[in-house]
């Protein structure tokens, strides 16, 4: 089985809210100093899901990531978890793409890779939280898509996937090749083993440009974007928290109960 996992590098989503800053002009997040970007939470689970399949059924895992700067770091991270190959997609033409443009670039890269049985994506990138790229990518590749998976097993020549639902889950059988988007329920990502890290360090990660994957410039031109972010702002919270105190914790707790009762909340 050949699994392709698409991963994205994002500003650390666990930046404390108080430190979270944006630049309204460029509509971008300004990460605080000393906080390096990380692999998107759900994409890391997608790598984990791929590794689980590899552990069980044997598979070759190729990781691709589109981005700028140190994007190879996230690919390396995936390699150290157990992926076999990694490719970065780096080109100035790939900057500021919307979901549609991103899916287009990924689809071209996947077509260049050629044969595959399964494409995995995170259910959404933990920065813009759109949750579109996976499904659009599947449509572009013309393969079935199963979204928000919590478990993926090889079965009956295809895949048996559990999808997370509001009140439970749904089990579906999908043929291969197909695309599955992965949710955090799939399990905590494994810690890279020593061997994994060493292999990842030694591995060459090719960087493909727009030319390498035969991108149609019109498809990634800013004018061609389907969606446009017109404003980015940090919401103002006007909640004033009433801190309840007391001689000790117990007294504060009693006071809290009294106040909630007085305010008719309980």
């Amino acid at each position: 089985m050949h699994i392709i996992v698409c991963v994205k590098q994002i500003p650390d989503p666990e930046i404390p809210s108080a430190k979270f800053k944006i630049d309204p002009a460029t509509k971008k997040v300004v990460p605080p100093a000393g906080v390096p970007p990380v692999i998107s939470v759900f994409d890391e689970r997608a790598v984990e899901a791929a590794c689980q399949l590899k552990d069980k059924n044997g598979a070759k895992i190729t990781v691709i990531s589109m981005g700028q700067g140190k994007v190879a770091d996230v690919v390396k991270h995936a390699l150290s978890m157990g992926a076999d190959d990694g490719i970065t997609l780096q080109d100035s033409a790939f900057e500021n793409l919307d979901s549609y443009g991103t899916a287009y670039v990924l689809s071209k890269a996947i077509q260049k890779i050629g044969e595959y049985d399964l494409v995995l994506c995170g259910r959404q990138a933990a920065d813009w939280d759109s949750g579109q790229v996976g499904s659009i990518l599947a449509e572009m590749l013309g393969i079935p898509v199963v979204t928000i998976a919590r478990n993926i097993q090889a079965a009956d020549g295809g895949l048996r996937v559990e999808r997370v639902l509001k009140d439970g889950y749904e089990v579906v059988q999908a043929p291969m090749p197909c695309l599955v988007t992965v949710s955090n329920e799939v399990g905590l990502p494994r810690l890279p083993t020593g061997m994994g890290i060493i292999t990842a360090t030694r591995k060459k990660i090719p960087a493909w440009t727009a030319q390498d994957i035969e991108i149609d410039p019109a498809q990634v031109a800013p004018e061609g974007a389907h969606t446009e972010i017109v404003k980015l702002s940090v919401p103002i919270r006007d909640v004033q928290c009433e801190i309840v105190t007391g001689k000790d914790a117990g007294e504060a707790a009693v006071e809290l109960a009294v106040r909630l009762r007085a305010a008719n909340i309980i």
Partner: protein
Amino acid sequence: MDTHKGILLCGEIEKGTLAPITMELLGIGRVLADKTGQELSILLMGSDIGGLGEEALAYGADKVYVAENPLLEHYHSDACTMVAADLCRKALPSILLLGNTDAGRDLAPRLAARLQAGLATDAVELDIDPDTGILVVTRPVFGGNALASVMVRKVRPQIATVRPKTVKPAEKDASRQGQVIRMVAEVDSSTLKVQVVERVEEKVEGVRLEDAEVVVSGGRGIGSSQSYEMIWELARLLDGAVGATRPACEEGWISMLHQVGQTGKMVSPKLYIAVALSGAMQHIAGCSGSKCIVAINQDPEANIFKVAHYGVVGDYKEILPAFMGKLKELLAK
């Protein structure tokens, strides 16, 4: 682009009735339709829809498309994509709204791809730009740390999924008139690539999160599933539901079904008690609709105090027993 007119909604049916999100879509759809002077239509997919088409009219739709097929009894990604895309190609709506639900999250991006349209998911605010008449969708990004406004200028339809419980639902007016169009839903099971094997409903212990008036949630600071028992106890005392942060679920202290947050449940109870959770934005996203948030945390700097109405700084293991003791006394009165 002028070829596309009107607002189309993708309604949802739950246990033979219109789902709450459908009423919410009709509510916001009506507002937008009135603002732009366009027609409001809604697509209902199911196996036996009965009189729900007429009911949708009563809730404000001008036109209802009814697509019936046994294969559509439950949401099926391939089938629904086919039917909805078909309709969009024929009806050519300018705006297409779905719920940001299990179904909508899955369907919307597939439609966006097939129709080469533009999509903004998880909208919490929808408005029409007065200059251009284009839909402006405001959606939380970066786990709720920021809000982004998105416009679709170049392509049609402009698609958005609406976060449940963020817009005002439509009110019923039985006197409203409109058209119910039964369409042929040509879905052949042989064309469906993905087969649904089974649907498993997992019963949540205690009160359902979505329905609860009181929700008590714990975070990573709780420390163990054993200690989580205290959260359950408080929830039982207040007849409320138990929630949890993503880390608490992932630690295995409680089932994933209790996860409150951006990728879990969205709750808006009267009272939300947040215990030993720091208040990561992706969690706050799931509970910020609560009328009153009470935070109990050891760290006075914790983010949760920035969104809470009442707060106690201290160890929950000391606070909760005293709190529950006093509550019992107060509730007994």
